[in-house]
C-alpha cells in the first residue's frame, strides 16, 4: 500500500482489515507464526507439502495477495541467494532456501498484516513480559516502517537540495549516486537515533515508568482462536507423526 505522510508516499506492509485473522487474538497469531516458522526445519519434501497447506491457509485468511507482494519485494534477494546456492551446492539447496525465505516472508505477512503494535504489546503483557520490554518491542515493531520513511525522507530532502538528480547511465554518475547513498547512511542513522530518543522522552513524559499502569483493553480468546490453536496443534502433531512413521519405515 502507498501510505501517505508528511514525507510523501511510503511503501509499507499495511493491515489487511478484511482478513478473518484481524479479529483473532494476537497471542493466537504469535503461536501460529511460531509454529509456521518452525517448519523451516523440515526437509524438502515435507516443506513442499507444508507450503501447499500454508498457501491454502493464507488464501483462507485473505492474506495471499499481501504475501505475494511481500515475496515480490524480496525477489532480488531470493534470486541472488538461490543462484549462489545452486552454483555452490546444488539445486536442492537452492530450492529449500528459497522456500524457507518465502515461508518466513508469509509468516511476517500473517503477523504484521493482521496485528497492530498495540495488540502486540497487549499480547506480550498478558504473557507476563514486563511492560517496559513489551512497550519497547511494540515501538520497535512500529518503527520498522519508520526506518524506511526516514530513508525516503532524507533522499527527498537531498533531491530538494539538488543532489541525486536523474542523470546519465555511466560509471562516473553511478559512482556519484553510490557516494550519495553512502552519505545519507550516517544522517539516516543519526535521524533514527534522534527519533528513538524523542520517542523515549515523549513516553517518559507521559508516565511510561509508572508502577500502577492499568491497560484500557484486555484480550479475550474467542471460538476462532481456540479453533486456530486446535488446527495448529493438529497440523504439528500430524507432521511429528509423519516424521516418526517415515523414520520407522526407513529403519
Amino acid at each position, binding site marked *: *500500500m*502507498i*501510505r*501517505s*505522510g*508528511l*514525507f*510523501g*508516499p511510503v511503501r509499507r506492509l499495511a493491515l489487511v482489515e478484511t482478513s478473518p485473522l484481524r479479529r483473532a487474538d494476537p497471542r493466537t497469531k504469535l503461536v501460529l507464526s511460531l509454529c509456521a516458522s518452525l517448519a523451516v526445519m523440515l526437509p524438502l519434501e515435507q516443506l513442499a507439502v507444508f507450503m501447499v497447506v500454508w498457501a491454502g491457509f493464507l488464501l483462507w485468511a485473505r492474506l495471499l495477495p499481501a504475501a505475494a507482494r511481500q515475496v515480490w519485494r524480496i525477489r532480488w534477494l531470493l534470486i541472488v541467494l538461490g543462484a549462489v546456492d545452486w552454483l555452490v551446492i546444488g539445486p536442492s539447496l537452492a530450492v529449500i532456501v528459497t522456500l524457507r525465505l518465502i515461508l518466513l516472508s508469509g509468516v511476517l505477512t500473517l503477523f504484521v498484516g493482521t496485528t*497492530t*503494535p*498495540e495488540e502486540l504489546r497487549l499480547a506480550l503483557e498478558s504473557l507476563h513480559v514486563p511492560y517496559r520490554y513489551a512497550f519497547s518491542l511494540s*515501538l520497535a515493531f*512500529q518503527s520498522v516502517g*519508520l526506518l524506511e*520513511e526516514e530513508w525516503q*525522507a*532524507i533522499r*527527498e*530532502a*537531498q*533531491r*530538494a*537540495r*539538488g*543532489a541525486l538528480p536523474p542523470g546519465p547511465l555511466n560509471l562516473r554518475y553511478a559512482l556519484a549516486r553510490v557516494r550519495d547513498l553512502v*552519505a*545519507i547512511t*550516517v*544522517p539516516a542513522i*543519526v*535521524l533514527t537515533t*534522534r*527519533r528513538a530518543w*524523542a*520517542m*523515549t*522522552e*515523549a*513516553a*517518559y*513524559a*507521559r*508516565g*511510561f*515508568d*509508572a*508502577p*500502577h*499502569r*492499568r*491497560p*484500557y*483493553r484486555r484480550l479475550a480468546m474467542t471460538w476462532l482462536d481456540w479453533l486456530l490453536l486446535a488446527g495448529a496443534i493438529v497440523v504439528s502433531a500430524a507432521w511429528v507423526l509423519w516424521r516418526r512413521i517415515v523414520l520407522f519405515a526407513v529403519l
Partner: protein
Amino acid sequence: MADSCVRADQVSFRYPQDGHGLNAVSLDIRAGEAVLLAGPSGCGKSTLARCLVGLIPHLYRGRLTGEVWLSELNTAQTPLWRLTERAGLVFQNPASQMLTTSCEQEIILGLENLGLPPAEIRERLGEALARFGLKPLRMRSPQTLSGGEQQRLALAAVMARRPSVLVLDEPLSMLDSTASIELVTHLAELVRSGTTVVICEHRHERLRSLPGLRTVHLDPAARADAEGQEAGQAALPTAPCSPFVLEVSGLGVTLGGRPVLQELSFVVPGGRILAIVGRNGVGKTTMLRALVGLQPHVGTVTVDGKRPDLSLVFQNPDLQLFNATVREEILYRIHGPDMRRYAWLIEMLGLRPYEATPPLLLSEGEKKRVALATALMRGPRHGVLLDEPSLGQDAAHKARLVRIARALADAGQLVVMTTHDLSLAAQADRMVLLGSEGIVADGSPAMLLNDPGPWARAGLAVPAWVRPSLGEMAQ
C-alpha cells in the same frame, strides 16, 4: 514560598555535547498562574521546560546546578513518573512524540499510565477528541496527519492527563489561527480552574487573553546568537533573475485514496512573495511538495513550459540536515561556492557563531535557519518554497526572514511560503487562502485580511493581533 507550585532556584544546565543550554534562572510560579517564558531563539527555553517537568536531570546527562521544585517535590530526587503525574510537557516538534498507530491510542496511552479505570479513560478520551477537533481523525495514524493536526493530538494526549502544571513548548507554532484561538481559550479556562500554565512561545501577542499572564525573560545562553550583528544589510549578492511566470494548472494530489488537492490553478510572476494560508491539513505542504516535484500529482507546474528550478525548505528541518558542521551543511554539494553569498547568509541568519557546530545539536529555530541557508546557497534559478518558515523564530529572526525574502524578490526570484503566522503572511505581496475545496480567495494581504467573508468560508478567523502588522505594512 508557601503557595509556590513551581520553583526554580538558580537553575542552569549545560549539555555535554557542546556546552550550550540554559543560563542560571530563578522562577517562582504560583498555582493557577500563567507564565510566558520569552527570549531569543536558542536561549534555553526548551531546556528550562525540560527542567520544570523533571526530564532534566532524569533523562539527560549534563551539568545541572540549582534546584527545581514541583510543589513539595524536588525534581532531582523524585521518580519521574510521579513528577509527570503533576506536570505535563507538550514538546516543540509534535511529529517526534507520536508513539502509537492511531489518534485514539495516542491519548489512551498516557491515561493507562495514570492507572485510571476504563470508564474514566473512555470519558476523558471522548472529551479530548471533542475539544481538539480530533473526532474525525480518531482512527487515523498520527504519522499521516499534517503538522498542525499532530500538534493538536500532542496537546490532547497531554491535557487528557489533567496535570496541575502544564508546560507547552511553542504550542501555537503549527496551529492555524482558529485552532490557536481555541487553544488559548482552553488554556485560559485551565488557568481559571487552577491549572498552572507555562508557555515557551515567540508569538506573545496571541497569548494576551490568558488571565494574569506574567512574562519571564530568559537571558541569552552563552552561545545564543549575536543579535547585534547587522551584517547583511547589503542586498543579497546574486545576479538578477530574468523575468518569468510560474504557471500552475489543474494541480491535483490524492493521498491514500483521499483527494488532498483538486484542480488548483494559479499564475504568479517572479519577483513576488506569495503567502499560502489555510487550515491545518488542507494540503499546504502537499502543494509545496508538488510544486518542487517531490509529490506525484496531476496537472502541470511550469515556467516557460518546463519544470521550474525551485528549492524547498521543509517544515521539519531535521530531514534536511546531514552534515557534521553547519558550514559543511550549507556548502554541501555546491561546486565553486560563492563565498560572498555564504558570508551574507550566515550573517543574515545569525549562524556565524555555529559554523563549526553539528546542525542537529542546534535548537529547532536555528536548525530551521540552517535549512533555509542550504536552500539559498544552492541558488535555485526561480526561487524558494518555505514551509512554515517562522517556526521557532523570535521577532528579530522573523524580521530578518522577511528581509531575505524581500531581497530574493527584489532580485526577481519567487518566494512561496505556507504559514499559519498571519503577521508574517501579511508582509507578502500576495496571499492565497486555501480551503478544502481549493482556492477560496487570492489577492493582496491588506485586502484579504480586511474581508472576513473568505476566512469564514475557509473555516479560519483573522485574529486581532494581525491588525498591527497591517498598520506596519501600510507605513
